[in-house]
């Protein structure tokens, strides 16, 4: 069981590193961030609110961009079918996919975001809040995205449709995340508990649905 998980994870890792996908998401994040100071047109520091929202919007879009090829390549070249034929439990595949997606589109952003926030706004008091809420929110983005990425496997138009359908489901997470980031006192606040609750339910619920969807779509 564990062995299989590591094998699939390693395969995903290699795929991500060999194709340029791994660097694509993080560079997309940085590029998206750069737009904000340019669009505001001032050479000064950004306002704190603006820099926070810039970071959240860039995180959202970097996640969505990476979501498109979460299952696409494995579906197209028959790897998923191979897993099913050889009776590999799909739960393991789904969890491995989610983990590798998060490692390449969530973790780098979490590490880099506090630095970006400081560079953009010159303000570092709320960096801990930003860090914690990003740690809680990016796995939820990945988990919500995974069933929807699996749903779109059969359709002909994938990229734009996927973004459009996934975005409404991300909105509550964004709202709680920004509320958690904005609060200035360093106490752990209610939004974090809420995000944690969503994360712990989602960790069971969304992979389960994804497995069902993959099974019914591939058959």
């Amino acid at each position: 069981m564990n062995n299989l998980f590591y094998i699939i994870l390693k395969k995903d890792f290699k795929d991500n590193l060999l194709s340029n996908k791994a660097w694509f998401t993080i560079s997309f994040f940085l590029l998206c961030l750069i737009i904000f100071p340019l669009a505001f047109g001032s050479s000064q520091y950004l306002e704190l609110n603006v820099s926070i929202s810039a970071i959240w919007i860039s995180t959202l879009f970097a996640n969505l961009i990476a979501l498109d090829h979460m299952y696409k390549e494995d579906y197209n070249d028959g790897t998923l079918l191979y897993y099913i034929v050889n009776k590999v439990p799909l739960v393991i595949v789904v969890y491995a996919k989610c983990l590798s997606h998060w490692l390449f589109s969530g973790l780098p952003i979490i590490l880099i975001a506090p630095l970006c926030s400081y560079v953009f706004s010159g303000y570092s008091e709320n960096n801990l809040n930003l860090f914690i809420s990003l740690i809680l929110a990016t796995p939820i983005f990945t988990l919500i995205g995974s069933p929807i990425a699996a749903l779109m496997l059969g359709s002909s138009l994938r990229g734009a449709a996927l973004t459009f359908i996934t975005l409404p489901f991300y909105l509550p997470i964004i709202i709680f995340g920004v509320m958690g980031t904005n609060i200035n006192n360093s106490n752990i606040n209610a939004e974090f508990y809420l995000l944690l609750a969503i994360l712990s339910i989602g960790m069971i619920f969304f992979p389960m649905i994804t497995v069902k969807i993959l099974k019914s779509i591939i058959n």
Partner: protein
Amino acid sequence: MLRKLHKYANPNKFSLIIMPIKNVCLYTALPLIAIGLIIGLFFSPPDYQQGETVRIMYIHVSSAWISLFAYVLIFFLSVFYLIWKFPLFVLMAKEIPFVAIIFTLITLITGSLWGKPTWGTYWVWDARLTSFLILLFIYLGLIFIDKAFKYNVNGDLSFSYLSIIGAINIPIIKFSVDWWNTLHQPASVIRASGPSINIEMLIPLMIMSTGVLLLFFYLIFTNIQSAIAEKKILFLSSKD
């Protein structure tokens, strides 16, 4: 019990069965809506707090109920489809979003027209309003996913799974006024302790919502018949 329902499973028969129900719906809906409009606009008393603007409630609340109810309907039809794999369910579910999206739009627009005189703004980013806007986008996504799979068998499955995922939003909308302090007033009709609303306003509201609900059913049934006929057309034209 379930055996007895099997004879309604044939889409052709189903289409014939809903024909009289549909007509009854339409011809009771129109007088009910007319009576509700007249009572609501001219004979119901103004609210002691909100004055005359309370008259917007009769259309705002009734369409809000319809748009929530429509989602619950889609959710249950999708669940039934996934359990029994019976295509008529998803055929019915697929016709709902387009009708429901109009009611959601009505709710949002009349709500903002009500908000201007009472709150002072057309739009606030509070929990109830935002979650209703998300409902609108989920309906759009459902329509979109239906269109994206026009020529693919997986479309039915994708539609029903997406509607199940989207159902998370429904309890959030219902309880958003209780969980967060918002500008939007809490529910005053459907409560555990009975309605707190004045009886003279409750009567036109109930007449209005029954009428709109029947109208909604009429539109859904007509669309279902069209969809069944569309399937028939596809079948007939593929024979050549």
